[in-house]
């Protein structure tokens, strides 16, 4: 039976693993190589690795570090940060990563999506759509070349261009432990033909289970759940075992 993915999302800043709150105030977590090795050994379904300063600094994630990380895994690895062109994707895939995640550059030069999808295959090209709520409680995406305001419309545009997967990332809730914004996901039901992955806000596995039972998405990203132990935020890399995971996604996609 098909089971959605439970995905640890790991944030890199200056080559170390950090945990952010709303992508700000990074707290040092540890060595990414070690964390990935542990998560891979625990049987993680996939790892998402995002370098959050690469884009701003107009560079790619540290490729030799990504290579060292990928050497420690035999599970799918997705990498994002600063990707602008086909050659960048090529470089990242050469490190052993399986999938890239595009975001900021796809907003201004979306042509990269069809050309990359044609060259590397659709399933290799994930696109991240960051969203937040404005003061009117309306969901908004980041500025883009089409002047689209609604994150769902933006994601549909990316789908049309050939994205293989959409990662919705809730900027307001990231690192806040508030749980996923279920209201947001009501709007996406039946609107996509490509896999949808949710990220931002999960505090406990129950949050993931709840979202899955309502919307049956294809993947659920979380980070604090896999990095912290207890309320004191002590660092402990952990991941549910196979039985726990199957129980979590007991409601199966048909």
């Amino acid at each position, binding site marked *: *039976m*098909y*089971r*959605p*993915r439970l995905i640890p999302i790991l944030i890199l800043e200056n080559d170390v693993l950090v945990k952010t709150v709303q992508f700000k105030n990074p707290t040092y977590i540890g060595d990414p190589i070690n964390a990935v090795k542990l998560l*891979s050994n625990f*049987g993680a*379904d996939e790892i998402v690795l995002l370098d959050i300063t690469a884009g701003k600094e107009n560079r790619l994630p540290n490729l030799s570090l990504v290579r060292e990380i*990928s*050497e420690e*895994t*035999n*599970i*799918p690895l997705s990498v994002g940060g600063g990707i602008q062109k086909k050659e960048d994707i090529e470089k990242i*895939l*050469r*490190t*052993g990563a*399986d999938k890239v995640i595009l975001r900021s550059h796809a907003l201004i030069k979306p042509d990269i999506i069809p050309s990359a999808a*044609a060259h*590397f*295959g*659709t*399933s*290799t090209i994930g696109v991240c759509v960051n969203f937040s709520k404005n003061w009117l409680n309306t969901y908004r995406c980041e500025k883009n070349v089409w002047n689209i305001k609604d994150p769902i419309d933006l994601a549909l545009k990316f789908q049309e261009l050939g994205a*293989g*997967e959409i990662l919705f990332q809730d900027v307001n809730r990231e690192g806040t432990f508030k749980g996923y914004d279920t209201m947001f996901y009501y709007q996406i039901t*039946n609107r*996509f*033909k*490509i*896999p*949808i992955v949710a990220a931002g806000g999960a505090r406990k596995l129950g949050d993931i289970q709840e979202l899955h039972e309502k919307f*049956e998405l*294809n*993947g659920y990203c979380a980070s604090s759940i896999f990095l912290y132990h207890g309320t004191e935020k002590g660092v402990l890399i952990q991941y549910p075992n*196979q039985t726990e995971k199957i129980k979590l996604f007991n409601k199966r*996609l*048909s």
Partner: protein
Amino acid sequence: MRTIHPLIYDYNQGNLFSWENCLRQLGLEFRIGNSSDDLEWATHIVLPGVGHFAKAMESLIRPELIGPLEKSVFVDKKPVLGVCLGMQLMFDFSEEGDAKGLGWIKGNVRGLELKNNLKIPHVGWNTIDFVGNSIFQNMNQTAEFYFVHSYCCEPSESQNVLCSTYYGSEFVSGVMKENLIGFQFHPEKSGASGLALIQKFLEL
């Protein structure tokens, strides 16, 4: 002890690094290449593949490549493992780019059907059901493997079906015909269960 020399067959397509990684983790001496010398050296051939069918065939059917490869497959009868696109390439024809395949196994490759609000590509972990007798029949039936694909194989001859998987409907997730084996999923990306399957192949 029996020598095991896997060759990761390089035809300028696909993610070779994951295979490199995986064979290294198994502690094996392996090569990446496509020369006659590499093929001669190899005891097992892995045909990886991520990407587009028609494009992959373009690189693969160059005479300097296909000649030595088919000699190893059909004359020397070396075990070959085609993975994902590598499995699909063994068939006669694919809807992806409407292109002719290698024709090693009878049948076609078609697009997955969008059913019950399931998404395409089929990305994620899924179980496989082995049918009939094979070296794999004693594998753990609850083990999950990583899939990522939008197309699937339809062998014309049912005796070539090794295993199937359910995603909205049943599709063939593995084939076997003499020394040819194909898996639609990625054993090299499927953690411990994947490694176990690869070890089985290397026992052939």
